[in-house]
Protein backbone atom coordinates (compact mmCIF):
# COMPACT_ATOMS: atom_id res chain seq x y z
CA UNK A 1 0.00 0.00 0.00
CA UNK A 2 1.36 3.42 -0.88
CA UNK A 3 2.26 5.57 2.07
CA UNK A 4 1.14 9.15 1.86
CA UNK A 5 1.20 12.26 3.98
CA UNK A 6 -2.59 12.03 4.02
CA UNK A 7 -2.39 8.97 6.27
CA UNK A 8 -1.89 11.07 9.37
CA UNK A 9 -4.81 13.36 8.62
CA UNK A 10 -7.17 10.51 7.84
CA UNK A 11 -6.04 8.77 11.01
CA UNK A 12 -6.70 11.91 13.03
CA UNK A 13 -10.16 12.22 11.45
CA UNK A 14 -11.11 8.66 12.31
CA UNK A 15 -9.75 9.17 15.84
CA UNK A 16 -11.86 12.30 16.20
CA UNK A 17 -14.98 10.46 15.11
CA UNK A 18 -14.30 7.60 17.50
CA UNK A 19 -13.63 10.06 20.33
CA UNK A 20 -16.94 11.79 19.61
CA UNK A 21 -18.77 8.46 19.75
CA UNK A 22 -17.01 7.59 22.99
CA UNK A 23 -17.92 10.95 24.47
CA UNK A 24 -21.57 10.44 23.55
CA UNK A 25 -21.60 6.93 24.95
CA UNK A 26 -19.91 7.75 28.25
CA UNK A 27 -20.95 11.31 29.04
CA UNK A 28 -24.36 11.47 27.42
CA UNK A 29 -25.56 7.93 27.80
CA UNK A 30 -25.59 5.37 30.51
CA UNK A 31 -22.70 3.11 29.44
CA UNK A 32 -20.85 3.55 32.74
CA UNK A 33 -23.87 2.75 34.84
CA UNK A 34 -24.61 -0.45 32.98
CA UNK A 35 -23.96 -3.21 35.41
CA UNK A 36 -21.66 -5.99 34.39
CA UNK A 37 -21.84 -7.68 37.77
CA UNK A 38 -23.31 -11.03 38.51
CA UNK A 39 -26.97 -11.16 39.44
CA UNK A 40 -29.36 -13.70 40.89
CA UNK A 41 -33.01 -14.05 39.96
CA UNK A 42 -35.99 -13.84 42.29
CA UNK A 43 -39.65 -14.05 41.32
CA UNK A 44 -42.41 -11.96 42.87
CA UNK A 45 -46.21 -12.11 42.50
CA UNK A 46 -48.20 -8.91 42.23
CA UNK A 47 -51.95 -8.31 41.90
CA UNK A 48 -51.33 -5.21 39.79
CA UNK A 49 -47.99 -4.12 38.37
CA UNK A 50 -49.11 -0.61 37.42
CA UNK A 51 -46.54 0.96 35.10
CA UNK A 52 -43.67 -1.48 35.61
CA UNK A 53 -41.57 -2.30 32.56
CA UNK A 54 -38.53 -4.52 32.03
CA UNK A 55 -35.31 -2.76 33.09
CA UNK A 56 -37.20 -0.80 35.77
CA UNK A 57 -35.05 -0.19 38.82
CA UNK A 58 -35.39 -2.17 42.04
CA UNK A 59 -34.34 0.02 44.96
CA UNK A 60 -33.75 -0.53 48.64
CA UNK A 61 -33.33 2.55 50.81
CA UNK A 62 -33.28 4.51 47.57
CA UNK A 63 -30.22 2.76 46.11
CA UNK A 64 -30.58 0.71 42.93
CA UNK A 65 -29.95 -2.94 43.84
CA UNK A 66 -31.31 -4.65 40.76
CA UNK A 67 -33.51 -4.49 37.68
CA UNK A 68 -36.77 -6.02 36.56
CA UNK A 69 -35.98 -8.86 34.16
CA UNK A 70 -39.35 -9.86 32.80
CA UNK A 71 -43.05 -9.60 33.54
CA UNK A 72 -45.49 -12.37 32.68
CA UNK A 73 -49.10 -13.18 33.50
CA UNK A 74 -49.79 -16.36 35.43
CA UNK A 75 -53.20 -17.69 34.41
CA UNK A 76 -53.28 -20.22 37.26
CA UNK A 77 -53.06 -17.69 40.08
CA UNK A 78 -54.28 -14.73 37.91
CA UNK A 79 -51.42 -12.63 39.19
CA UNK A 80 -48.43 -11.06 37.48
CA UNK A 81 -45.13 -12.93 37.86
CA UNK A 82 -42.28 -10.43 37.91
CA UNK A 83 -38.72 -11.78 37.63
CA UNK A 84 -36.15 -9.52 39.28
CA UNK A 85 -32.39 -9.79 38.86
CA UNK A 86 -30.74 -8.54 42.02
CA UNK A 87 -27.02 -7.83 42.22
CA UNK A 88 -25.13 -10.72 43.84
CA UNK A 89 -23.35 -8.47 46.32
CA UNK A 90 -26.64 -7.64 48.08
CA UNK A 91 -28.62 -10.31 49.93
CA UNK A 92 -32.03 -9.84 51.46
CA UNK A 93 -33.80 -11.89 54.16
CA UNK A 94 -36.37 -14.44 53.05
CA UNK A 95 -39.31 -12.44 54.43
CA UNK A 96 -38.47 -9.14 52.67
CA UNK A 97 -41.47 -7.32 51.25
CA UNK A 98 -41.76 -5.69 47.85
CA UNK A 99 -43.81 -2.60 47.10
CA UNK A 100 -44.45 -0.73 43.88
CA UNK A 101 -43.67 2.91 44.60
CA UNK A 102 -43.59 6.09 42.57
CA UNK A 103 -40.60 8.42 42.58
CA UNK A 104 -42.14 11.83 43.03
CA UNK A 105 -45.85 12.46 42.59
CA UNK A 106 -46.12 11.77 38.86
CA UNK A 107 -42.77 10.11 38.38
CA UNK A 108 -41.72 6.71 37.17
CA UNK A 109 -42.66 3.64 39.16
CA UNK A 110 -40.08 1.38 40.72
CA UNK A 111 -40.00 -1.61 43.08
CA UNK A 112 -38.90 -0.96 46.66
CA UNK A 113 -37.52 -3.78 48.80
CA UNK A 114 -37.94 -3.56 52.54
CA UNK A 115 -35.72 -6.01 54.38
CA UNK A 116 -37.44 -8.44 56.75
CA UNK A 117 -36.09 -10.07 59.89
CA UNK A 118 -35.43 -13.66 58.79
CA UNK A 119 -31.97 -15.11 59.36
CA UNK A 120 -31.98 -16.97 56.05
CA UNK A 121 -31.47 -14.99 52.85
CA UNK A 122 -33.27 -15.11 49.52
CA UNK A 123 -31.80 -17.79 47.26
CA UNK A 124 -31.77 -17.66 43.46
CA UNK A 125 -35.12 -18.89 42.19
CA UNK A 126 -37.08 -18.01 45.32
CA UNK A 127 -40.56 -16.54 45.12
CA UNK A 128 -41.57 -13.54 47.22
CA UNK A 129 -45.25 -13.37 48.13
CA UNK A 130 -45.17 -10.44 50.59
CA UNK A 131 -45.96 -7.87 47.92
CA UNK A 132 -47.99 -4.70 47.71
CA UNK A 133 -49.39 -3.82 44.32
CA UNK A 134 -49.38 -0.50 42.54
CA UNK A 135 -51.90 2.12 43.53
CA UNK A 136 -54.75 2.30 41.03
CA UNK A 137 -56.39 5.72 41.06
CA UNK A 138 -59.89 4.48 40.20
CA UNK A 139 -59.91 2.02 43.10
CA UNK A 140 -58.85 4.79 45.47
CA UNK A 141 -61.64 7.06 44.26
CA UNK A 142 -64.32 4.38 44.48
CA UNK A 143 -63.06 3.46 47.98
CA UNK A 144 -63.31 7.09 49.01
CA UNK A 145 -66.81 7.51 47.58
CA UNK A 146 -68.00 4.26 49.16
CA UNK A 147 -66.75 5.26 52.59
CA UNK A 148 -68.37 8.68 52.18
CA UNK A 149 -71.67 7.01 51.26
CA UNK A 150 -71.40 4.66 54.26
CA UNK A 151 -70.77 7.63 56.63
CA UNK A 152 -73.71 9.50 55.17
CA UNK A 153 -76.26 6.66 55.72
CA UNK A 154 -75.53 5.59 59.35
CA UNK A 155 -77.17 8.55 61.28
CA UNK A 156 -80.48 7.98 59.37
CA UNK A 157 -80.48 4.26 60.26
CA UNK A 158 -80.09 5.22 63.97
CA UNK A 159 -83.20 7.49 63.93
CA UNK A 160 -85.26 4.85 62.04
CA UNK A 161 -84.46 2.21 64.70
CA UNK A 162 -85.60 4.48 67.54
CA UNK A 163 -89.05 4.70 66.03
Amino acid sequence: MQRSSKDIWVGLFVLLGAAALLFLALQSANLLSLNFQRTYEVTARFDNIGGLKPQTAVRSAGVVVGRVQSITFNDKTFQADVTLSLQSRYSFPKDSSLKILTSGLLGEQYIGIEAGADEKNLQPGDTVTATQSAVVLENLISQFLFSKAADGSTPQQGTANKK
Partner: protein
Amino acid sequence: MTWWKPADVGFAVRSKLAGLGVGARLFVRLLAQAGACLRRFALVRDQIHFLGNYSLAIIAVSGLFVGFVLGLQGYYTLQRYGSSEALGLLVALSLVRELGPVVAALLFAGRAGTSLTAEIGLMKAGEQLSAMEMMAVDPVRRVLAPRFWAGVITLPLLAAVFSAVGVIGGYVVGVLMLGVDPGAFWGQMQGGVDVWADVGNGVVKSIVFGFTVTFVALLEGYEAQPTPEGVSRATTRTVVVASLAVLGLDFLLTAMMFSI
Protein backbone atom coordinates in the same frame (compact mmCIF):
# COMPACT_ATOMS: atom_id res chain seq x y z
CA MET B 1 -43.41 16.27 -22.90
CA THR B 2 -47.10 16.51 -23.65
CA TRP B 3 -49.02 14.90 -20.84
CA TRP B 4 -52.17 14.34 -22.80
CA LYS B 5 -50.52 12.11 -25.35
CA PRO B 6 -50.44 8.49 -24.14
CA ALA B 7 -47.30 7.74 -26.13
CA ASP B 8 -45.38 10.47 -24.35
CA VAL B 9 -46.61 9.39 -20.94
CA GLY B 10 -45.70 5.80 -21.72
CA PHE B 11 -42.22 6.83 -22.84
CA ALA B 12 -41.68 8.89 -19.70
CA VAL B 13 -42.74 6.01 -17.40
CA ARG B 14 -40.51 3.55 -19.24
CA SER B 15 -37.50 5.83 -19.11
CA LYS B 16 -38.04 6.43 -15.38
CA LEU B 17 -38.21 2.67 -14.83
CA ALA B 18 -35.06 2.21 -16.89
CA GLY B 19 -33.34 4.86 -14.78
CA LEU B 20 -34.36 2.98 -11.63
CA GLY B 21 -32.92 -0.21 -13.10
CA VAL B 22 -29.63 1.45 -13.97
CA GLY B 23 -29.43 2.82 -10.45
CA ALA B 24 -30.13 -0.56 -8.88
CA ARG B 25 -27.47 -2.26 -10.99
CA LEU B 26 -24.88 0.38 -10.10
CA PHE B 27 -25.72 -0.04 -6.41
CA VAL B 28 -25.18 -3.80 -6.56
CA ARG B 29 -21.88 -3.31 -8.43
CA LEU B 30 -20.67 -0.84 -5.82
CA LEU B 31 -21.57 -3.23 -3.00
CA ALA B 32 -19.75 -6.05 -4.77
CA GLN B 33 -16.52 -4.01 -4.93
CA ALA B 34 -16.09 -3.98 -1.15
CA GLY B 35 -13.36 -6.61 -1.22
CA ALA B 36 -11.40 -4.86 -3.99
CA CYS B 37 -11.56 -1.59 -2.06
CA LEU B 38 -10.22 -3.24 1.08
CA ARG B 39 -7.26 -4.57 -0.88
CA ARG B 40 -6.43 -1.17 -2.41
CA PHE B 41 -7.18 0.81 0.71
CA ALA B 42 -4.94 3.72 -0.40
CA LEU B 43 -7.70 4.81 -2.78
CA VAL B 44 -10.33 4.70 -0.04
CA ARG B 45 -8.01 6.51 2.36
CA ASP B 46 -7.48 9.35 -0.12
CA GLN B 47 -11.23 9.68 -0.54
CA ILE B 48 -11.84 9.66 3.22
CA HIS B 49 -9.35 12.52 3.42
CA PHE B 50 -11.19 14.39 0.67
CA LEU B 51 -14.72 13.73 1.94
CA GLY B 52 -14.16 13.63 5.68
CA ASN B 53 -11.36 15.94 6.68
CA TYR B 54 -12.56 18.74 4.46
CA SER B 55 -16.15 18.44 5.73
CA LEU B 56 -15.05 18.57 9.36
CA ALA B 57 -15.10 22.36 9.55
CA ILE B 58 -18.68 22.82 8.39
CA ILE B 59 -19.95 19.85 10.42
CA ALA B 60 -18.30 21.01 13.64
CA VAL B 61 -19.36 24.64 13.33
CA SER B 62 -22.92 23.69 12.38
CA GLY B 63 -23.07 21.27 15.29
CA LEU B 64 -21.93 23.96 17.66
CA PHE B 65 -24.57 26.41 16.51
CA VAL B 66 -27.33 23.80 16.49
CA GLY B 67 -26.35 22.97 20.07
CA PHE B 68 -26.47 26.66 21.00
CA VAL B 69 -29.95 27.06 19.54
CA LEU B 70 -31.24 23.86 21.14
CA GLY B 71 -29.95 25.03 24.49
CA LEU B 72 -31.59 28.43 24.13
CA GLN B 73 -34.95 27.32 22.78
CA GLY B 74 -35.09 24.31 25.06
CA TYR B 75 -34.40 26.40 28.14
CA TYR B 76 -37.14 28.94 27.45
CA THR B 77 -39.70 26.26 26.70
CA LEU B 78 -38.83 23.98 29.63
CA GLN B 79 -38.74 26.89 32.04
CA ARG B 80 -42.46 27.50 31.53
CA TYR B 81 -43.16 24.07 33.05
CA GLY B 82 -40.51 24.30 35.73
CA SER B 83 -38.43 21.56 34.12
CA SER B 84 -35.37 23.54 33.08
CA GLU B 85 -33.17 20.91 34.73
CA ALA B 86 -34.08 18.50 31.94
CA LEU B 87 -32.28 20.70 29.37
CA GLY B 88 -29.33 18.32 29.07
CA LEU B 89 -31.67 15.43 28.36
CA LEU B 90 -33.57 17.44 25.73
CA VAL B 91 -30.43 18.57 23.90
CA ALA B 92 -28.77 15.16 23.96
CA LEU B 93 -31.82 13.18 22.83
CA SER B 94 -32.67 15.61 20.03
CA LEU B 95 -29.11 15.52 18.72
CA VAL B 96 -28.29 11.86 19.13
CA ARG B 97 -31.56 10.47 17.83
CA GLU B 98 -32.46 12.88 15.02
CA LEU B 99 -30.52 16.06 14.36
CA GLY B 100 -27.04 14.52 14.38
CA PRO B 101 -27.60 11.91 11.66
CA VAL B 102 -30.04 13.95 9.55
CA VAL B 103 -28.40 17.38 9.55
CA ALA B 104 -24.94 15.87 9.10
CA ALA B 105 -26.29 13.89 6.13
CA LEU B 106 -27.87 17.01 4.60
CA LEU B 107 -24.65 19.00 5.02
CA PHE B 108 -22.66 16.08 3.65
CA ALA B 109 -24.94 15.90 0.62
CA GLY B 110 -24.45 19.60 0.01
CA ARG B 111 -20.70 19.70 0.51
CA ALA B 112 -19.31 16.27 -0.37
CA GLY B 113 -22.13 14.98 -2.54
CA THR B 114 -21.98 17.87 -4.98
CA SER B 115 -18.19 17.65 -5.26
CA LEU B 116 -18.46 13.91 -5.98
CA THR B 117 -21.11 14.44 -8.66
CA ALA B 118 -19.17 17.27 -10.29
CA GLU B 119 -15.94 15.28 -10.27
CA ILE B 120 -17.47 12.14 -11.81
CA GLY B 121 -19.52 14.19 -14.27
CA LEU B 122 -16.47 16.10 -15.46
CA MET B 123 -14.50 12.86 -15.77
CA LYS B 124 -17.31 11.55 -17.93
CA ALA B 125 -17.41 14.76 -19.99
CA GLY B 126 -13.64 14.62 -20.45
CA GLU B 127 -13.99 11.00 -21.62
CA GLN B 128 -11.66 9.79 -18.86
CA LEU B 129 -14.09 7.02 -17.89
CA SER B 130 -14.29 5.76 -21.48
CA ALA B 131 -10.48 5.89 -21.74
CA MET B 132 -10.24 3.73 -18.61
CA GLU B 133 -12.61 1.20 -20.11
CA MET B 134 -10.44 1.11 -23.21
CA MET B 135 -7.50 0.16 -21.02
CA ALA B 136 -9.55 -2.68 -19.46
CA VAL B 137 -9.71 -0.82 -16.14
CA ASP B 138 -13.22 -0.96 -14.71
CA PRO B 139 -14.10 2.68 -13.87
CA VAL B 140 -16.68 1.56 -11.30
CA ARG B 141 -13.99 -0.40 -9.44
CA ARG B 142 -11.21 2.17 -9.82
CA VAL B 143 -13.09 5.46 -9.46
CA LEU B 144 -16.60 5.00 -8.06
CA ALA B 145 -16.26 2.21 -5.48
CA PRO B 146 -13.49 3.85 -3.37
CA ARG B 147 -15.60 7.01 -3.17
CA PHE B 148 -18.66 4.98 -2.22
CA TRP B 149 -17.03 3.13 0.65
CA ALA B 150 -15.23 6.27 1.79
CA GLY B 151 -18.59 8.03 2.07
CA VAL B 152 -20.12 5.11 4.00
CA ILE B 153 -17.22 5.19 6.48
CA THR B 154 -17.13 8.98 6.77
CA LEU B 155 -20.75 9.95 7.42
CA PRO B 156 -21.23 8.07 10.73
CA LEU B 157 -18.05 9.65 12.06
CA LEU B 158 -19.20 13.10 10.98
CA ALA B 159 -22.62 12.56 12.56
CA ALA B 160 -20.97 11.55 15.83
CA VAL B 161 -18.79 14.68 15.76
CA PHE B 162 -21.90 16.78 15.06
CA SER B 163 -23.81 15.32 18.02
CA ALA B 164 -20.88 15.57 20.43
CA VAL B 165 -20.10 19.17 19.51
CA GLY B 166 -23.81 19.98 19.74
CA VAL B 167 -24.02 18.59 23.28
CA ILE B 168 -21.04 20.73 24.24
CA GLY B 169 -22.72 23.73 22.61
CA GLY B 170 -25.87 23.05 24.62
CA TYR B 171 -23.74 22.88 27.76
CA VAL B 172 -22.09 26.22 26.98
CA VAL B 173 -25.43 28.00 26.51
CA GLY B 174 -27.41 26.18 29.19
CA VAL B 175 -24.94 25.98 32.04
CA LEU B 176 -22.45 28.75 31.39
CA MET B 177 -24.83 31.36 30.02
CA LEU B 178 -28.30 30.57 31.37
CA GLY B 179 -27.40 29.08 34.73
CA VAL B 180 -28.77 25.55 34.55
CA ASP B 181 -27.22 23.36 37.24
CA PRO B 182 -24.33 21.37 35.65
CA GLY B 183 -25.00 18.33 37.83
CA ALA B 184 -28.61 18.20 36.72
CA PHE B 185 -27.57 18.85 33.10
CA TRP B 186 -25.23 15.86 32.84
CA GLY B 187 -27.03 13.68 35.39
CA GLN B 188 -30.45 13.77 33.72
CA MET B 189 -28.76 13.27 30.36
CA GLN B 190 -26.90 10.19 31.54
CA GLY B 191 -30.04 8.81 33.13
CA GLY B 192 -32.19 9.26 30.06
CA VAL B 193 -30.01 8.54 27.03
CA ASP B 194 -29.49 4.83 26.41
CA VAL B 195 -26.28 3.78 24.66
CA TRP B 196 -27.85 1.10 22.49
CA ALA B 197 -31.37 2.40 21.95
CA ASP B 198 -30.47 6.05 21.33
CA VAL B 199 -26.80 6.44 20.39
CA GLY B 200 -26.74 3.05 18.65
CA ASN B 201 -29.84 3.75 16.60
CA GLY B 202 -28.42 7.14 15.64
CA VAL B 203 -25.28 5.42 14.36
CA VAL B 204 -27.37 2.92 12.37
CA LYS B 205 -29.28 5.83 10.84
CA SER B 206 -26.10 7.63 9.83
CA ILE B 207 -24.73 4.44 8.22
CA VAL B 208 -27.92 4.11 6.15
CA PHE B 209 -27.69 7.79 5.21
CA GLY B 210 -24.04 7.30 4.23
CA PHE B 211 -25.05 4.59 1.78
CA THR B 212 -27.88 6.74 0.41
CA VAL B 213 -26.15 10.10 -0.03
CA THR B 214 -22.94 8.71 -1.51
CA PHE B 215 -24.83 6.41 -3.86
CA VAL B 216 -27.10 9.22 -5.13
CA ALA B 217 -24.08 11.49 -5.70
CA LEU B 218 -22.17 8.81 -7.63
CA LEU B 219 -25.20 7.76 -9.67
CA GLU B 220 -26.01 11.30 -10.74
CA GLY B 221 -22.39 11.91 -11.71
CA TYR B 222 -22.11 8.63 -13.60
CA GLU B 223 -25.36 9.17 -15.54
CA ALA B 224 -24.89 12.90 -16.13
CA GLN B 225 -25.05 14.38 -19.60
CA PRO B 226 -21.39 14.89 -20.60
CA THR B 227 -21.80 18.64 -21.08
CA PRO B 228 -21.22 21.53 -18.65
CA GLU B 229 -24.97 22.10 -18.45
CA GLY B 230 -25.57 18.41 -17.82
CA VAL B 231 -23.02 18.36 -15.00
CA SER B 232 -24.58 21.39 -13.33
CA ARG B 233 -28.04 19.86 -13.56
CA ALA B 234 -26.73 16.60 -12.13
CA THR B 235 -25.14 18.45 -9.22
CA THR B 236 -28.43 20.16 -8.39
CA ARG B 237 -30.31 16.88 -8.64
CA THR B 238 -27.84 15.26 -6.25
CA VAL B 239 -28.65 17.71 -3.50
CA VAL B 240 -32.41 17.55 -4.06
CA VAL B 241 -32.71 13.77 -4.40
CA ALA B 242 -30.25 13.01 -1.59
CA SER B 243 -31.94 15.45 0.81
CA LEU B 244 -35.41 14.09 0.10
CA ALA B 245 -34.18 10.51 0.38
CA VAL B 246 -32.51 11.25 3.72
CA LEU B 247 -35.64 12.86 5.16
CA GLY B 248 -37.90 10.09 3.88
CA LEU B 249 -35.63 7.33 5.19
CA ASP B 250 -35.36 9.18 8.49
CA PHE B 251 -39.10 8.95 8.93
CA LEU B 252 -39.12 5.24 8.09
CA LEU B 253 -36.17 4.45 10.35
CA THR B 254 -37.59 6.48 13.22
CA ALA B 255 -40.92 4.68 12.91
CA MET B 256 -39.14 1.32 12.95
CA MET B 257 -36.74 2.10 15.77
CA PHE B 258 -38.48 4.39 18.19
CA SER B 259 -42.12 3.40 18.16
CA ILE B 260 -43.22 1.33 21.09
